């Protein structure tokens, strides 16, 4: 393999470029990214960055060492198509890149609210520019209505409170975070809003945004009208896979890959938020959307890419990614509380409080199925959480092999 194109210049893409070199690949690397900024870190965008406690420079993912990677950077350039042989990428500037191998790392974008198009004061939060615009709205004062009580919505609510902006959170589901955490623990996390006097209106979706050129309010299905100077839509994300239409790749729910990052096309792998990778534990494809996965998957996927398509599944991955890298993990920070979750919870798992008390917002909960732990949730319990994460990873590795 003499040339590799990495599409998407963010956490997963940059990590893939580093992994290529770390694994001894010495051919050309072209890194194509449609944002104009060099790779930056997104998690602080909904946390310290909104409060100007972190600067744009602090967000930079690249370091001095990356200069030695010899990357041909194509920033502010979108990939618009991948041919069916997976060898040629068409670019938005009219050019094209030919490569022997392709790493797809185009991530995801924020889902928008239908009908919000063009109305000023309506925000989503995915990019640095999004965060700058939202920060400006926060500086201008409230009220802010947050649509969606997921992690990003909740973190922004916490930042808005710290910025002195009046905020209301609306959530279509009866219980926030029930998807990732289950109803019981979702309610415990959502309790953080109530602790800080932030209203969370659950169970009524948004019917429409009110206002003209600028948003003035939000009307819910139940008729409630909430005045708004700004709205943040935090309704999850959509994988950036449209550019791959016609490539022959399976794009159901993201770029489908096997557990080692291989797609249906030879010499094409996919990593990070755009990838729906097969998870043996769940016996289905999962698009995890966790920072840690975007950081860990490239090591395995690049190994798969360099090993070539003739390697049978399971053998290309000698060492197949570190054990801890396989266990899904994410964190969140709200109202000064650190939330950490690891494992794979399923509906029907029971929840056991291992230590602390959810009411105190300082506890460790273990999800169990058939008497075995499946996942762990910690609030301000990093040490205990780490211990559990270790147990789960060992169990996970035993199942994966």
């Amino acid at each position: 393999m003499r040339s590799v194109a990495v599409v998407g210049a963010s956490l997963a893409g940059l990590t893939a470029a580093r992994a290529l070199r770390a694994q001894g690949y010495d051919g050309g690397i072209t890194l194509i990214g449609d944002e104009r900024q060099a790779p930056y870190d997104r998690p602080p965008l909904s946390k310290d960055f909104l409060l100007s406690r972190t600067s744009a420079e602090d967000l930079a993912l690249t370091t001095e060492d990356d200069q030695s990677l010899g990357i041909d950077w194509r920033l502010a350039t979108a990939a618009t198509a991948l041919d069916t042989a997976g060898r040629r990428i068409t670019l938005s500037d009219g050019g094209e890149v030919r490569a022997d191998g392709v790493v797809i790392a185009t991530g995801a974008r924020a889902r928008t609210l239908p009908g919000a198009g063009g109305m000023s004061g309506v925000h989503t939060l995915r990019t640095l520019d999004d965060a700058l615009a939202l920060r400006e709205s926060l500086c201008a004062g409230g009220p802010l209505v947050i649509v969606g009580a997921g992690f990003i919505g909740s973190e922004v609510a916490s930042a808005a409170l710290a910025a002195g902006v009046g905020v209301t959170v609306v959530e279509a589901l009866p219980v926030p975070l029930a998807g990732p955490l289950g109803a019981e623990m979702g309610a415990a996390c959502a309790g953080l809003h109530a602790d800080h006097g932030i209203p969370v209106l659950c169970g009524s979706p948004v019917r429409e945004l009110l206002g003209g050129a600028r948003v003035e309010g939000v009307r819910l299905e139940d008729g409630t009208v909430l005045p708004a100077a700004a709205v943040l839509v935090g309704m999850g994300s959509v994988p950036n896979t449209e550019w791959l239409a016609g490539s022959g790749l399976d794009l159901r729910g993201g770029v489908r890959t096997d557990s080692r990052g291989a797609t249906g096309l030879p010499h094409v792998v996919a990593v990070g938020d755009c990838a729906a990778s097969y998870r043996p534990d769940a016996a289905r494809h999962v698009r995890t959307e966790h920072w840690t996965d975007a950081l860990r998957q490239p090591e395995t996927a690049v190994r798969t890419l360099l090993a070539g398509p003739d390697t049978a599944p399971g053998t290309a991955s000698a060492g197949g990614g570190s054990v801890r890298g396989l266990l899904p993990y994410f964190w969140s920070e709200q109202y000064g509380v650190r939330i950490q979750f690891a494992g794979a919870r399923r509906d029907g798992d029971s929840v056991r409080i291992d230590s602390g008390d959810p009411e105190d917002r300082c506890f460790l909960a273990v999800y169990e199925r058939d008497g075995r732990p499946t996942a762990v949730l910690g609030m301000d319990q990093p040490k205990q959480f780490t211990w559990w994460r270790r147990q789960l990873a060992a169990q996970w590795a035993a199942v994966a092999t």
Partner: protein
Amino acid sequence: MEHSETLTREGTVLVACRIEDLPPGESVRIDAADGTQAVAVFNADGELYAIDDTCTHQDASLADGWLEGCTVECPLHAACFDLRTGMPNGPPAKRPVRTHRVTVEDGFVRVHVAVPVQAF
């Protein structure tokens, strides 16, 4: 499990704990009584190492981290630090943590706090 104790200062030497309180695979955080940088001491398969406790990325305690060989993984965002050199082996940390010499005298683990290394 980690023990958090108030340290006693002997010049630049901190007494961390008794050696039997730090078995292999365990860590201890020494919260400096005078508010200076806390230190984390690890027993990596019998070898003792001390580093600054606070991750250079954000505000996490490395004593809470995941010890594997001579490496500790930050409990928050998974940056890994080499306990021997303090160097991070990858993102999101970009700067090393200070390392400190550890000795065992009369059954007590002592940390000889180092002068700061130059950050790059």
